C-alpha cells in the first residue's frame, strides 16, 4: 500500500500502526505531533492506529524559529 508521508509517496509492505512507522523512522513520539488526513492524532492512540492506503501523514515537530 501507499501513503503520503510529509509530502512524499511512501510504499509500505503491509498495514502497520503509526507507532511502528515512527519506530522504523527512529522518531520519539513525545517530541512531535502526527496529523493524518488533516486530523491531529492523540499520542496515546499511536499503537492502535492502523494506517490505510492513501493516508496523508504529516509528522511535525519544533525547529528553531523566531
Amino acid at each position, binding site marked *: 500500500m501507499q501513503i503520503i508521508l510529509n509530502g512524499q509517496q511512501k510504499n509500505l509492505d503491509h498495514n502497520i500502526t503509526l507507532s511502528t512507522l515512527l519506530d522504523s523512522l527512529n*522518531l520519539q513520539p513525545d517530541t512531535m505531533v502526527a496529523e493524518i488526513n488533516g486530523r*491531529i492524532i492523540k499520542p496515546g492512540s499511536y499503537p492502535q492506529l492502523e494506517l490505510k492506503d492513501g493516508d496523508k501523514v504529516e509528522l511535525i515537530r519544533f*525547529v*528553531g524559529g*523566531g
Partner: protein
Amino acid sequence: MLSIADTSFSSRLFVGTGKFASSSIMRQAVEASGSEMVTVALRRVDLENPADDIMTALDLTKIHFLPNTSGARNAEEAIRLAHLARAASGTSWLKLEVTPDPRTLLPDPVDTLKATEELVREGFTVLPYINADPILALRLQDAGAAAVMPLASPIGTNQGIRTTMQVEIIIAQARVPVVLDAGIGAPSHAAQAMEMGADAVLVNTALAVAGDPVRMARAFKAAVEAGREAFEAGLGRQSKTASASSPLSGMLTADLNFIQA
C-alpha cells in the same frame, strides 16, 4: 516583574531559536541570555535527520516555549499550525505570525486579527506579531490578545527601532505587555526599546549571526536590564536649552493679568 497572562518572567529578553549555526550554540546562547521564553517554529520532521530535536536541546524546566506560526500566509493556515503547536508542546501559548509576503515577511493585519479572535475563543494565549500600528494593537487587545508584539523594523534587517512614534503610542495605550520584536540588531536597540517602556524585546537574528552568539547573548541580557532599570528610574528629560541652572529661561510666558487676584 513582567507578567503575561498570569505567568511571571524575571527576564525581559525573549530569544528566537532560528538561524543558529548549531543547536548546541543556540542552547548556549539561550542560557547566556538568561531568557525564560524562547520562540520555536513548527516544521515537518526531517526524515533524513530524525535525531535533530530542539525540545531536547533546551532545559524546559526553566524556559517557556512559545511556538510561532511562521510560514502561515493567512488566518486559516495559522490556526492549523496553532492546533499542531498545541498538540506538540502541550502549551496553548502562541506567537501568532501571519506573513503573506515572503519577501518582507511583514505581518497581515486583517488575518492576524481574524486568527486572534478565533484562537482566543479556543482558549489559546495569543501574542500576535504585528506592524507597529496602534489601532491594530488596540483591536487585538479588545479581541483578547495576551500581549502585542510590534516590529521595530522589518524582520532580519537589524535596523533598530524605525517605528518609534507608533511604538510610543502603542506603549502609552497598552493594557497588556508590549514586546518589541523584529529588527532589533544591536544591544543598544534593545536598551532603547526598554527605555521607551517596552515590557520586553524579542531577539533572534542579532544573536544567531553574531561572531560569537554566546557573548552577544550576554550583551543583550545586560542591555535589556540596563534599559529597563533606566525606564524604572525615570530618565531625565531632554532639554532644548543648554543652561542647567535655569532651563526655562528661554521659555515663552503668557500674560495672566486677566486673572483676579
